[in-house]
């Protein structure tokens, strides 16, 4: 469903991403790993429309999407989380989820002012979807807390829930396990697998936690200094000499 071909991104003199390719099938978890500064987040930024890539193609469901503005990409069904959690911190947990469902709501201002039946109906179904996902990530009891007051692990889960209420086809997670304790990482592991199995979402995962990556990925892409180094199943990657040298060995 997603194909990235020969993607490159240049910042001035720095070629941060150079010839990276990637493909993701329906209901698949594909990981991107690599040492710090390898260019993983930059790949995400290109895919989600934050940067206009300097070269290469990104094809989502048969349509070229490179260079399309970020807010339109997410409307196509590709949403992302951020390496550093980005919540609407002064808004409540539910409000965070309602903002994300903008597209599903009746945004006609007059309809809203007069509270037409269609407006109310859509507002209610947005609330129900929010309740469903809050329950799913264990935050239902905290729904009226300010998002900024949640514990770090809860914020991470809220960010995933906020993506899921948009009903995406492809979810991009940038280091979702960073800063989580082992128990939380385990929950996250189960959550990501369930997103794939139960909700038919494809996942692209950037992660430094190797046991998580090896455990849940269907395929793994390794990049190093912006260049693709290897790709394959977890088993293949585990035994790839280049990877061991460049990445695992160093850790």
């Amino acid at each position: 469903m997603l194909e990235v071909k020969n993607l490159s991104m240049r910042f001035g003199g720095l070629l941060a991403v150079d010839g990276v390719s990637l493909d993701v099938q329906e209901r698949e978890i594909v990981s991107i790993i690599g040492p710090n500064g390898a260019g993983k987040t930059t790949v995400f930024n290109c895919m989600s429309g934050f940067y206009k890539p300097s070269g290469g193609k990104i094809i989502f469901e048969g349509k070229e999407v490179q260079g399309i503005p970020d807010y339109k990409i997410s409307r196509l069904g590709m949403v992302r989380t951020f390496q550093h959690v980005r919540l609407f911190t002064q808004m409540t947990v539910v409000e965070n989820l309602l903002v994300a469902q903008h597209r599903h709501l009746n945004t006609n201002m007059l309809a809203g002012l007069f509270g037409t039946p269609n407006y109310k109906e859509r507002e209610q179904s947005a609330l129900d979807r929010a309740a469903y996902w809050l329950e799913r990530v264990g935050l239902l009891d905290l729904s009226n807390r300010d998002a900024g007051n949640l514990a770090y692990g809860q914020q991470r889960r809220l960010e995933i829930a906020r993506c899921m209420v948009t009903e995406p086809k492809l979810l991009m997670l940038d280091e979702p396990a960073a800063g989580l304790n082992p128990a939380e990482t385990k929950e996250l592991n189960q959550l990501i697998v369930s997103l794939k199995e139960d909700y038919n979402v494809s996942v692209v995962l950037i992660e430094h936690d190797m046991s998580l990556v090896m455990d849940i990925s269907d395929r793994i892409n390794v990049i190093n200094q912006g260049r693709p180094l290897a790709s394959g199943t977890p088993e293949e990657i585990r035994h790839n000499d280049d990877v061991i040298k460049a990445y695992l060995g160093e850790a």
Partner: protein
Amino acid sequence: MAANNYRHALFCAIVTLIISFPILGFNLEAKGVNIELTGAKTSTIVAVILAAVAVFVFQAYRDSFMGLLGKLPKLNPLAGREPMEQSKRVKLESWVLTGIVVLALFWPFVVSRGSVDLATLVLIYIMLALGLNVVVGLAGLLDLGYVAFYAVGAYTFALLSQYTGISFWMALPIGALLAGLTGMILGFPVLRLRGDYLAIVTLGFGEIIRILLNNWTTLTGGPNGIGGIPEPTLFGMEFGRRIKEEGNTSFHETFGIAYSGEHKVIFLYLIALVLAVITALIIRRFMRMPVGRAWEALREDEIAARSLGLSRTAVKLSAFTIGAFFAGFAGTVFASKQGFISPESFVFLESAIILAIVVLGGMGSQLGVILAAIAVTILPELAREFSEYRMLIFGAAMVLMMVWRPQGLLPMRRIHITLNKQG
């Protein structure tokens, strides 16, 4: 540490002396045709020195003073109380608000004409502040040229009445819509700007509009302004002693009562009250709608908002447009109340006052903004003797507020949303 403190304090005291001595310490006196420089009275000089000493002491022991100030909230009777239950609080709030509005409906009949006039002005400021609250408080776009839209509303009515003889009721929507349109047009070039840059550019726009009004003498009359702006009518009844417009009747004759200048003032007040209530209700509704949440999301984190499919253009423009729309509303009422407008009424200071109201009230909080509008408009009137020091007191109040309650009088409270548990 301590030595550093004293050095800093000494520096501040010297700066105080350097600034205040030339201003207060010397007087220009006219002696015949010449102007002479004379020293000020000893008392003034003593006062200047005392001020410098006060600055020194404050700066040297600043930390302990600030610590004391921090303890102040404990004196606040409301500080330690248990938060009220959600449903009870909402009910109480709506009762209190309804009560205030009902009281406001009746009180012009018992107080003096001057008070009613002042109250009308307060209501105009409430409308302005509620509108600016959308732009600054909710959408987080620091707009320093808000008064431009107020001017557009006022001038729309003034010009249309001058050239076409339009009535207040026709001008009200036209003025608001034109102001909203101006807001949208001025919004386009600043879409990419944030924070300080946005503030500077909007400040420029505000000034451009004022200077335009000042210099386009053939249309606007320039600094002379436009007079003879009609008062509102009630179903074709005029409030003047004599009828100005063909076909209208007069209020006092229709009801067979003696003419009184107060009718007009009260009527204007009531219109302003109704419009202010409508403004508050509409914006309150917006805050609970997708558009209101989008404004706040953009304020909180623009990148995250965009990653979730919100278009920056649409959200920012809607905030600018709606804020400007209500400024246009207020402008039309203002023009009608004054009967005469000139660019003088739309200087930067007005923008600054409206912004101060929003900040003092608590960004995003409607009740806070309303209270602050009342305070900022009425207090200077009550303290007329101090009117020279108005700006000084104003500035001091702002500084104190920022230290003591940076979140404003009544910080915005989140709306509680009850969710139904899903299967």
